């Protein structure tokens, strides 16, 4: 079990908890998508897993129990190569170029310069941003920034041996992307998951989730409303109950889409 959450509670105030009574287990080589309406707690769950929110309950990562896990805890350091997080927004306001941003992902390793450059190139090509290597990061568009950052976290995970288990958390990786790159990034996430990695992504688009996820966790009001594969989730009654919107399922010839 790569990542295990039991009796997880996150609350800023007692009256309205962000997350309550969460019990989840995630395995490696899985692309898990967290779905849910606004305020359902999906981003809170991701931020708790990445150590940014205080919680009660228990989180186990790579078999280590983290009772009061905070990102400043020293224990985090041992995970740096195996645990990467893609933030939703990047606040980098210094004029690094694209390649330098990706290279920052290789900071935890002590690789020779030529090997660093090789990996920077490999992952920038994989996320389709190699042409941005000389461009200054603050001048890129939101989607370009996101894909450069994705290359950075993938480079970070490349510091492990291929057989080692890894965790990658993606906070709304497709939110700033146009149609083509939404599919490209999710396709890439599937490939990454196949490389011994647990990928947990927060998405907004039910159809994208249904098409790419191995498993979908549907959150509503801070609780798990449904947990399963796309066929189990694409249920108009369930969607209506969680989202308050009754859609229609359309057969697209091979897969279903919710309209």
């Amino acid at each position, binding site marked *: 079990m790569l990542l295990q959450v039991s009796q997880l509670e996150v609350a800023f105030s007692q009256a309205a908890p962000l997350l309550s009574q969460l019990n989840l287990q995630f395995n490696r080589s899985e692309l898990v998508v967290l779905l849910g309406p606004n305020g359902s707690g999906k981003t809170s769950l991701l931020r708790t897993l*990445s*150590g*940014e929110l205080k919680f009660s309950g228990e989180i186990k990562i790579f078999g280590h129990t983290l009772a009061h896990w905070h*990102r*400043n805890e*020293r224990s*985090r*350091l041992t*995970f*740096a*190569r195996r*645990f*990467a*997080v893609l*933030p939703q927004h*990047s*606040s*980098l*306001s*210094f*004029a*690094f*170029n694209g390649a*330098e*941003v990706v290279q*920052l*992902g290789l*900071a*935890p390793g002590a690789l020779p310069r030529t090997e660093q450059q090789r990996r920077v190139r490999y992952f920038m090509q994989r996320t389709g941003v190699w042409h941005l290597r000389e461009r200054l990061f603050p001048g890129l568009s939101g989607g370009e920034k996101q894909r450069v950052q994705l290359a950075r976290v993938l480079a*970070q995970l490349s510091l492990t041996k291929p057989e080692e288990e890894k965790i990658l958390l993606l906070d709304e990786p497709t939110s700033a992307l146009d149609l083509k790159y939404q599919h490209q990034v999710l396709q890439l996430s599937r490939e990454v998951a196949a490389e011994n990695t647990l990928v947990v992504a927060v998405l907004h688009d039910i159809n994208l989730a249904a098409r790419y996820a191995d498993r979908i966790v549907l959150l509503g009001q801070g609780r798990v409303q449904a947990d399963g594969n796309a066929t189990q989730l694409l249920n108009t009654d369930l969607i209506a109950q969680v989202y308050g919107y009754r859609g229609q399922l359309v057969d697209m010839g091979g897969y279903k889409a919710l309209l």
Partner: protein
Amino acid sequence: MRLHDKSLLPTLMALLLLGSGVSLVVGAMSIGWKEALMGLLHWQWPTLLASEVEAQYAQVLGEVRLPRLLLGLSVGATLGLCGAVMQGLFRNPLADPAIIGVSSGAAFGAALALVFSGYFISVAGLWLQSFSWALLPLCASVGAGFATWLAYRLGNRGRSVVMMLLAGVAITAVAGAGLGLLQYIANDSALRDIAMWQLGSLTGASWSAVALSTVVLFAAGGFLWRRHGELNALLLGEAEASHLGVDTLRLKKLIILLSAIAMGTAVSVAGLIGFVGLVVPHIVRLLRGPDHRFLLPYSALTGAILLVLADILARILVAPAEIPVGILTALLGAPFFIFLLHQQRRQFV
């Protein structure tokens, strides 16, 4: 467009040598290049060239101009370095020790030490009295450290530029009031010293000040440079840096501690010299990019050059009198700050 070491380093070194040379020959007493060189040799080895050099030249060079030059270099380097790491800590290119109130905090600490140093020396034991030279830089460092910490907390840990700048205003106001109070109760000699500090000047340069600020510069600079990778990661954001395995809490403490010691020492020997720490890292980033591996040493080098050049200007503009160099750097640096604000104004609304 970025320059690489091959062209940047020799250019900076040439500027440094040129500025240093000019700084030795200009001043109230006009000394030629040849005479300056011979004078220095004679001052160092009194038996050498004894017949050809005027004793007065040798004394002016060795005891006034050379320490002043070296103090300018080390203080300028410290300011450039501290500006660069503060901008990294606040993740904003507008952070500067003078703007966020760190210099004022240091000046308040220094003034406190100055006004009460007589009291301190009278109550301290004999053993402690031999460390009284450290009182001034120490108090200035404590003031600088406290101000940095406060600005960082009030500025929402580097997330809000507006809050950071307002925190700087508040800290400067509080330190200024404290400074005013100290001036009010200070005796005449302390009052003069405080006034000199606030203007910022290299005139009081002594060999002991040179030694102190140089040692602190290299120690703080060395420790910070060893962390260049972590400083780069911190620019991505605090959470992102911690995901890359950086112990951000420890790193931030280290930055605040070391830059406070460096700033406190610089202020205690040369007073408030603003805007060098703002301008210099900007220039270096434009020329060489934001990678701290190069940013830190090049900011130190450029800061040294800039302060020495400013000091030359301060001496020749109204010769034979001189302007305190802190006034000059503020005159040149403040418009630059306004220019940066103008450029970034979209982020504030």
